[in-house]
């Protein structure tokens, strides 16, 4: 590591690495600094227990932009996506809902619950795909600022306006609803089956402090139809070797492009001289100069911690304070001696290879949310489980399994007590909830890792434990993300850029923020 680079990237998460790779491919001398001993940030695989490899935080991939996979040639760097087939929802009455990628089978399954819904499911699918096509280009777009007078912004606004205008009447109608409605209100118009609505709407609340009936949650339903793996719509998947393998593939692509990556290199502050970022200072005192600094960590760490509000405009600080993190989810990773046995569908089988969703009904989801609103974690939470070892045996010892449980709601701010004292109680709640559907789970558990929002903050640098580096609510999206006026990857500090999930288009293993930021930085470079 020398002490002078064209660009220093703060954070070796997937966005930081994507950002670095694109900069290096444009001939820049780039250094990536990662605080932890492993690359990947929240997209990381770790051997938490001997022999058991966990996708510790983020656990499925779907939104990784195809252009990034293509341009960085990630398959050659070891990225292999294994399909995650379907979602299995056990119900308390012993019945279940099992949707798979095979449309015809899913249709038959839904017909068991309601013929009407089965028919609606076709219509719904068609409509959503139309919608996804409409929204797709917006993801890799520089968010236009409606308050600006710059031609570039007007061009993008006009582009969106015209696209919307060109939509058929029904798609216009659906788009408006998707952008503004709650997931349940939206789905109520298509379906009558409670468990179907609950399971589908669950995707709308992941990582946000909202309930399935909160307006603005419908939009995320689209993501399921945007997840592209080799261009195939609607499919989700695992990375072979866990989500860390994605980061590693991007890392290797970056290295090949000439990026220097240093781990265990925590940064103390960003050096600013008369309004310009000129480099970073590591916690060990080392100083590194750079023409530009690109931060993939969230705004609170970037500005409040590494720069200090005293060096920032007051209005900007105010907006930073108003930026909502509000982590609402936790993670429980289980090392299992065998496979869980679900009352709703006994024995092993394909239903365990997909996602297993504890979301039996809309009211169940709402009750879970209500508790969080008043500062408790849900007594009966929504849980999204996957057992990657069934698809990718390399992650667990023979015959044994790893199970990853995403849990909502777990509010960062507890009304009573603190997370360090409640961690085990939270873990038990999750196990109890699973046991109601798969009683044998308790006997299978070899070891368990419980991640509370506080742990996500401490260990993974996600402020308030928000997995998306800030809530994905309407007032924090697009040209308002992270804060009004600074949604184009630039910051009030010259030569300092943001390239993490806190920027458009937000969280998830998309890579889009890193890529968009890189393109913006290179454009500015030319102007220099």
């Amino acid at each position, binding site marked *: 590591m020398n002490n002078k680079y064209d660009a220093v990237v703060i954070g070796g998460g997937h966005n930081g690495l994507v950002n670095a790779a694109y900069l290096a491919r444009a001939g820049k001398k780039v250094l990536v600094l990662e605080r932890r001993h492993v690359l990947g940030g929240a997209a990381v695989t770790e051997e938490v227990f001997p022999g058991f490899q966990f996708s510790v935080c983020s656990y499925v991939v779907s939104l990784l932009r195809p252009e990034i996979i293509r341009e960085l040639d990630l398959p050659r760097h070891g990225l292999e996506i294994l399909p995650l087939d379907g979602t299995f929802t056990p119900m308390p009455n012993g019945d279940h809902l099992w949707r798979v990628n095979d449309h015809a089978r899913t249709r038959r399954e839904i017909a068991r619950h309601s013929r009407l819904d089965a028919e609606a499911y076709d219509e719904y699918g068609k409509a959503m795909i139309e919608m996804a096509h409409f929204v797709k280009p917006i993801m890799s777009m520089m968010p236009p600022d*409606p*308050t600006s007078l710059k031609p570039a912004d007007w061009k993008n606004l006009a582009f969106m306006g015209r696209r*919307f*205008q060109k939509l058929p*009447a*029904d798609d*216009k*109608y659906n788009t*408006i*609803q998707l*952008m*503004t*409605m709650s997931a349940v*209100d939206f789905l*109520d*118009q298509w379906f009558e089956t409670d468990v179907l609505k609950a399971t589908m709407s669950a995707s709308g609340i992941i990582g946000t402090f*909202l309930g399935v*009936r*909160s*307006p*603005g949650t419908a939009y995320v339903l689209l993501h399921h139809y945007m997840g592209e793996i080799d261009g195939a719509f609607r499919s989700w998947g695992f990375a072979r070797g866990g989500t860390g393998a994605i980061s590693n593939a991007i890392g290797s692509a970056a290295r090949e492009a000439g990026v220097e990556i240093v781990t265990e290199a925590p940064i103390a502050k960003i050096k600013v001289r008369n309004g310009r970022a000129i480099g970073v200072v590591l916690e060990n005192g080392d100083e590194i100069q750079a023409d530009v600094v690109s931060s993939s960590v969230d705004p609170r760490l970037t500005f409040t911690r590494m720069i200090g509000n005293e060096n920032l405009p007051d*209005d900007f600080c105010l907006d930073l304070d*108003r930026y*909502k993190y509000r982590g609402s989810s936790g993670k429980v990773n289980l090392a299992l001696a065998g496979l869980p046995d679900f009352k709703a569908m006994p024995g092993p089988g394909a239903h365990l290879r997909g996602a297993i969703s504890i979301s039996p009904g809309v*009211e169940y989801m*709402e009750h879970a949310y*209500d508790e969080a*609103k*008043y500062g408790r974690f849900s007594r009966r939470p929504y849980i999204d489980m996957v057992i990657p070892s069934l698809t990718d045996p390399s992650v667990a010892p023979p015959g044994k399994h790893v199970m990853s449980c995403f849990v909502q709601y777990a509010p960062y701010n507890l009304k009573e007590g603190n997370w360090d004292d409640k961690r085990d109680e939270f873990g038990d709640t999750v196990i109890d909830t699973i046991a109601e559907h798969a009683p044998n789970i308790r006997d299978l558990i070899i070891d368990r890792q419980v991640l509370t929002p506080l742990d996500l903050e401490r260990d993974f640098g996600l402020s308030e434990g928000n997995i998306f580096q800030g809530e994905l*609510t*309407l*007032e924090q999206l697009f*040209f*308002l993300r992270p804060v*009004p*006026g600074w949604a184009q990857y630039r910051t009030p500090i010259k030569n300092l850029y943001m390239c993490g999930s806190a920027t458009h288009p937000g969280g998830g293993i998309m890579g889009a923020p890193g890529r968009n930021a890189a393109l913006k930085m290179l454009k500015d470079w030319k102007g220099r």
Partner: protein
Amino acid sequence: MHDIVIIGGGHNGLVAACYLAKAGLKVLVLERQPSVGGGAVTEELEAGFRISTLDHTPGPFSKNIISDLELSRFGLELITPEVRVVGLALNGESLAIYNDVERTVQEINKFSTRDANKYGEFVECFTRIGAVIAPLLSLTPPSIDQPSASEVWQLGKFGLAFRGLGKKDEYRILRWGPMAVADLVAEWFETELLRAMVAARGISGSFAGPWSAGTSLGLLWQAALGGSPIAPADHVKGGLGSLTRALAKAAESLGVEVRTSSEVSRIDFNATDRVRVILKNDETFEARAAVSNADPKATFLRLVDPVDLDPNFLSKVRNLRAVGTIAKINLALSDLPRFKGIPKEDGPTRLAGRIHIGPEIDYLERAFDAAKYGEFSQHPFLDITIPSLSDTTLAPPGKHVMSIVAQFAPYMLKAGDWATCERDLADSVVDTLSEYAPGIRDVISSVQVITPLDLESNYGLTGGHIHHGEQALDQFFTFRPLIGFAQYRTPISRLYLCGAGTHPGGGITGLCGANAAREIARDVKMGKI
């Protein structure tokens, strides 16, 4: 034959009638009740006690309409108490928001200096923004597919005004639109009671709690309507019925024919050059066009033959969100109730505006939680007025009437039905009230309970929704009632809408009626009808 038949003699129907008559058209208004007014009526609770049965304060009613139609000449008298709203806390504290900002600041200062300093800026900011949004209220929402030159011009004018605000306020509008009102008030104030009082406007009449996204819209709307985010407490002398009576008088003076006790059963569009409006008693009226002041669902699903409409359109209408959450309790009181922490002598002034019960954001949210599960709140959010304090015509001397809007009482109950739950609802409201006004039960001489079901069956509000449909981002401006049909026209060329189901929505403002009349008159001029 008439030129225009207006179905429904609510305030919007009557306003539309007046403007159409002014435009030289022969107008007939058909009201199914024995008296005009719809949601804005004054009725007798018991001998000598009169009260605004449903809505109790105007939205505020458009000043332009008042002067255009010279309503004061026809007996409209507005009374504006100094107090807009007084919020009550269980510990006997109370916080009054006055029309006068300075006085309010002093009041807030008792709770928090920080909030007191903020309040002025808060009101200014909303007033500034409201002034820019206001023109949109009396604007016909532009067409998205092919905006006309004049629509582009209007939007351009708005765009310029928007720019005039400066970036800071521009971003505020963009941010606040979709924001949860609980977050908005938290950005401004630290006093929980004040937060709750301000947030209340965001949820009133909606199927939403303060933590629901998009509820800040209500405050922006209020600021556009009334120049302040805090709804005023204007009373109409003689109750809201006097407003609609004045409108009816104005209409008749303009040559409008108003027929009460005339319930429309259906509208027949078989003739190409006219519509036929048929009453329950088969009496039939012909006109060049029919205008419905009823809500969109009632209009398209009850009054129109389904064969006249495209099934796809009908399914969209069925999907309109219109699940009411409001119940109304009206009380006749033998004496002015004493409220905790409000000295007897202060009562008449301090209680003259609206009385807000819902001391915390969480309280309001919990009240909403019940609605989600098909129950009515055990501790409801109450918006109360005692109009007799400022209007002696409503109750015998020394006695009073109390009007209570109780939220949340969902139209759909999970267990039981409204017929059987009516009592329990009234109890939960009066019990809640007793916690703040302990002696109230002793002074109640009669109780009137209006459940969401009554709102539907007696007042024709589908789903018991007082705003003719949820006022949320998805049913708003160019999307109200439906995208593509926000210009008061419908898929049927001779049928128009003029009710609160259209832009700018609910509240006693008269704007929907005025906007609709403008569009209809235009179509007449262009020979479309």
